[in-house]
């Protein structure tokens, strides 16, 4: 009787034959991944009020006197993995803007701090776009009240900020006013660093006029 060959072995032979016929293309895939995708890959870990960015990221933030609001904006190009308070995976261009109030009535909140512990250059400057290649750390005074997320490409996200699967272009915003407070908010996506967010405790009627002025478009 003739030898019966296992169908998998036969298929493997055919697959290998086809593989070698397309050798140049499939052989280039590992190099494409190592030299193009990996350098543009990053990871973001958000735990509590701390943010840790691993890999290349462009960022900017509002600086003192941040009497209007504490604002941070980050942009990733390529592959980025998110973990912690918000989980996700994005490929393409992804951007996140987070805004929290700078104070509550007469009490001024601590300003967020940004640092690049592994960098030999000077510390980040507020108000302008900066680049971090390896590691960036941000510590906010409080959880953001407003978050805007934009994706051009593909993304999967799960968390309190957004839960969505998107292929294409998408922008999402979420505003969660603090319970038991007054909050006025003004945001322009073209100039996010000029956003204003004022939070007042209950009974701050003497600030009502100012808050209502903030709301006038």
């Amino acid at each position, binding site marked *: 009787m003739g030898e019966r060959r296992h169908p998998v072995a036969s298929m493997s032979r055919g697959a290998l034959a086809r593989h070698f016929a397309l050798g140049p293309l499939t052989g280039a895939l590992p190099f494409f991944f190592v030299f193009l995708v990996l350098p543009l890959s990053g990871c973001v870990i958000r735990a509590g009020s701390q943010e840790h960015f691993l890999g290349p990221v462009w960022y900017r933030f509002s600086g003192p006197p941040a009497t209007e609001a504490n604002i941070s904006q980050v942009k990733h190009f390529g592959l980025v993995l998110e973990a912690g308070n918000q989980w996700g995976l994005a490929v393409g261009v992804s951007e996140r803007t987070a805004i929290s109030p700078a104070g509550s009535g007469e009490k001024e909140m601590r300003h967020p701090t940004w640092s690049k512990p592994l960098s030999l250059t000077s510390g980040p400057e507020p108000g302008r776009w900066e680049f971090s290649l390896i590691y960036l750390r941000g510590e906010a005074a409080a959880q953001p009240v407003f978050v805007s997320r934009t994706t051009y490409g593909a993304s999967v996200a799960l968390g309190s900020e957004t839960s*969505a*699967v*998107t292929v294409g272009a998408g922008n*999402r*915003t979420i505003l969660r006013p603090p319970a038991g407070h007054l909050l006025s908010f003004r*945001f322009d*996506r073209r100039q996010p660093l000029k956003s204003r967010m004022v939070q007042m405790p209950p009974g701050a009627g003497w600030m009502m006029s100012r808050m209502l002025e903030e709301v*006038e478009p």
Partner: protein
Amino acid sequence: MKNHCSYGSFVILILTLFLLPGCAKTVAFGTATVFGLDISQKPDQTIDVALGYDRAEIATIPATEQDAKESEDTYSVIGIFSVSYGNPWTLEPLRLNQFFATGWAARTAARDKRLQEFFGKKAAEISKRGDDGK
């Protein structure tokens, strides 16, 4: 049959993961603008599927199954929100102007004469815009 069962289980798992986060009972205001394929969970926990161009604004306010009392609030809310979009094909931006008062802050603010006048004026403007649009 096995492939259909495993595929269905995967979809149920993804939908369950969508429903787990964001269950806190707070006021939430959200906007979404999408070009392409989008499957998302809105702030009111509903699942939305869109293919093409879609734009949405949603405000959710938690409700409790009890009446408010003089000494107990059941999440009172006063809110004014203005959302303006530009031409999406030129990627004009989103602008938000919002005011929220929640809980006891809302009940206190409602007694403020300035807020009452402001609300009255805004309500009249909105009503007039609605009539002009007919």
